[in-house]
């Protein structure tokens, strides 16, 4: 009888194993991670981290930044300015080839920028990248499809003219992943989802296969401007869970990964990872936003100031984030050139002062009478929830406010955010390029679609215009610092901490340069596996 049972079990095992047999992947392939599947692989329409990273892998921009924020040549090998600094003439790199082998020309760049600006493309980053270019508004209005300010002056020479009021930070803007060159024939013949059928870029890697929700398979591109990448076969596994990514790394299936905040201390104390753990700054601020349109007491500046003074950000950084993050007195991270946090590291618009905070509430006549406040937070990572809980506890302790931390699904969070419905919110902001404007213009200018807290101060908007019209970087940064001080004094946004990356990198992976942008990796062409 038992023999029969054993035979039945053995047959089951053989059937299950046999039915599940598939081909194993080839060895010797560089493997990194993606935090999720992409909605699209069109760099122009990207608004998610995955597409942003995929764009850095597959596409070519005119210029790029290194990990210290310096502008370096990429699609353009050099450039000059004329017309009082308003006209840029780019000499394109003749070595650049699309993934199908065709040389990249100035006409391709012109077409790609026109397409990015065209409202039909629905590119969220169009204004951030090209808003300062002559003729941008006409394209947005639908008067024309060609940016008047971008001219092809030779097969390998491109000229871009800027409006005086929109000149600021232009080269920084051109490092944005959306400012990539695309192969027109491939895009136009591929239909709306051309990226599923073809690899239309000119970046370091060509897309070989996109296995939805599983992985991207890339191959080194010999026609890349810096020559063939050091690694030929490259895969990015789509792994949304940070804990699973860490498991994959520990099991040797990923050559690098990010370390979730919740695992950082364990990893940092583990002697196995002493030489593999890399910690480097991230150009990200975690911030509390107060929305007077959705919570009337916040219309009184004294109430917002009281909130700002009741929060002990040093304690949040030290206890909630165990010293891994640093307290943020300003909004723009110190990696951004000329940022207030870099120029005046000790700056605090409102130092922690609970007694004064109580007085301010009393002066505003709302002490003990504030209605309950909901505090939603970004569900993408545990950091936001951790900070929100601490903020809620401090507001309760010092101001007697009834703050309810609201954990939502992604859809509810993003809907409330863009509709500006949240009375308060706890979010983070990470740069896609290192520029003051990426923080202040996008998040706090009253004309921006990303002004989630309904911050409106005409003087602030005027300073933003002034910064973007500044003739030198120094002048621009000085004006931005004034604008940042003003916004911090208004206390619509209250910076809490600046964050850092913790990555694990296998010893055999060489050339891994941490970047403060996006998810911390960018120069994929320099990565190599040693034997």
């Amino acid at each position, binding site marked *: 009888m038992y023999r029969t049972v054993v035979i*039945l079990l053995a047959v089951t095992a053989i059937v299950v194993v046999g039915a599940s047999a598939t081909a194993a992947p080839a060895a010797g392939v560089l493997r990194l991670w993606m935090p999720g599947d992409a909605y*699209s692989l069109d760099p122009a329409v990207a608004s998610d981290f995955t597409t942003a990273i995929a764009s850095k892998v597959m596409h070519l921009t005119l210029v790029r930044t290194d990990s210290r924020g310096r502008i370096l040549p990429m699609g353009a090998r050099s450039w000059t300015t004329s017309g009082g600094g308003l006209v840029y003439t780019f000499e394109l790199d003749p070595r650049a080839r699309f993934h199908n082998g065709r040389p990249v020309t100035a006409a391709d760049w012109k077409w790609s920028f026109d397409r990015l600006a065209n409202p039909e493309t629905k590119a969220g980053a169009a204004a951030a990248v090209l808003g300062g270019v002559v003729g941008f508004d006409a394209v947005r209005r639908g008067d024309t499809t060609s940016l008047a300010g971008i001219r092809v002056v030779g097969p390998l020479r491109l000229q871009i003219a800027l409006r005086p009021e929109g000149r600021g930070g232009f080269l920084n803007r051109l490092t944005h992943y959306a400012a990539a060159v695309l192969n027109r024939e491939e895009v136009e013949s591929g239909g709306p989802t051309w990226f599923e059928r073809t690899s239309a870029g000119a970046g370091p890697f060509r897309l070989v296969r996109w296995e939805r929700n599983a992985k991207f398979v890339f191959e080194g591109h010999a026609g890349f401007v810096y020559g063939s990448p050091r690694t030929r076969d490259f895969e990015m596994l789509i792994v949304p869970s940070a804990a699973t990514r860490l*498991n994959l790394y520990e099991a040797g299936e990923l050559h690098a990964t990010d370390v979730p905040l919740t695992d950082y201390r364990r990893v940092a104390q583990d002697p196995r990872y002493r030489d593999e753990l890399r910690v480097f700054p991230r150009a990200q601020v975690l911030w509390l936003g107060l929305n007077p349109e959705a919570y009337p007491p916040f219309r009184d500046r004294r109430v917002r100031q009281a909130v700002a003074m009741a929060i002990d950000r040093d304690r949040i950084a030290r206890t909630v984030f165990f010293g891994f993050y640093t307290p943020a007195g300003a909004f723009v991270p110190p990696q951004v050139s000329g940022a207030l946090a870099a120029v005046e590291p000790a700056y605090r618009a409102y130092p922690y002062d609970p007694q004064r905070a109580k007085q301010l509430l009393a002066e505003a006549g709302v002490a003990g009478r504030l209605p309950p406040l909901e505090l939603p937070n970004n569900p993408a990572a545990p950091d936001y929830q951790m900070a929100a809980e601490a903020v809620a506890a401090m507001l309760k302790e010092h101001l007697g406010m009834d703050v309810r931390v609201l954990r939502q699904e992604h859809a509810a969070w993003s809907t409330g955010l863009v509709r500006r419905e949240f009375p308060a919110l706890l979010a983070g902001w990470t740069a896609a390029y290192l520029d003051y404007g990426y923080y202040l213009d996008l998040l706090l200018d009253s004309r921006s679609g990303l002004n989630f807290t309904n911050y409106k101060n005409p003087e602030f908007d005027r300073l933003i215009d002034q910064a973007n019209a500044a003739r030198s970087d120094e002048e621009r940064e000085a004006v931005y610092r004034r604008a940042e001080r003003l916004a911090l004094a208004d206390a619509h946004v209250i910076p809490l901490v600046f964050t850092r990356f913790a990555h694990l990198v296998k010893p055999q992976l060489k050339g891994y340069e941490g970047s403060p942008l996006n998810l911390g990796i960018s120069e994929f062409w320099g990565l190599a596996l040693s034997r």
Partner: protein
Amino acid sequence: MIRYALRRILLTVPLVLVAAFLVFTAGRLAPGDPVAARLGQEYDPVAAAALRRQMGLDRPLVVQFAAYLAAVARFDFGESLITPGRRVSAIVADHLPVSLRLTTLAILLAGGVGLALGVAGAVRAGGALDRTLQLLILGALSVPNFVVAALLVLLFGVWWGVLPVAGLYHGWRSLVLPVVVLAIPPTAYITRVVRASMVQALREDYVRTARSKGLREARVVLAHALRNAALPIVTQVGLSFGYALTGAFVVELIFNVPGLARVGVEAILQRDYTVIQSVVLVYMGIFIAVNLLVDLSYALLDPRVRY
């Protein structure tokens, strides 16, 4: 039997309609808006209203539902609301085979192991093996699968390095842990039902008669008792298939398996209505089909059953 099958299929139509309507309305009543998700930083009330009109989301719910049913009748499941240009049928075609493979393997495993253990327990009812099995069944049904998954990943993937920890990047080896985790509760249920049915069958007169005729014990148990105990077992296997389908929603997320269940969860998080509706319809169809097959199999297993 064909008439019975047709009648059963027809009876499922109102069930499918009601379930489809519930899913259709529940998704739309939950907080979160695909229009806002799609527009992102381009969101403004005018653009949102235009896109809502373009997507047909401004029409009354009943009209939207009727339009949806009409499209489904033409096998047109529409386009994802979040990833424009991506057909829902393509999403299902890409991911359903992965989920079906996972679920089918889990049921094969659960069926085989459950049958073997159940029979072994029944033959030695009350003995040490039987008592151990009861304890194991209790444990298997009490510990949630995400806990078992984490434990197995830690042991076999991270510490011992003998099996992949996630994804389907290593062929059949990648499927071992997710299939085992998914199979544990159905195995416990099947073992329990097989044991109970077999204990009862082994007490029947025909078993005693078979033994008295001098038949080998294995033949008595497998050819006589097991065959007569088959009906509840087959029912349990069918129910377990439904369990495994729903269990896959958790297992695919934990093991990073690119199946339809994981796509469904992500669609729910994004309020991608068209994808959610299709995932539910597909799963409902599979569940109904399996149950129908189970019902029809009764006639094959027991000649006394007539339709």
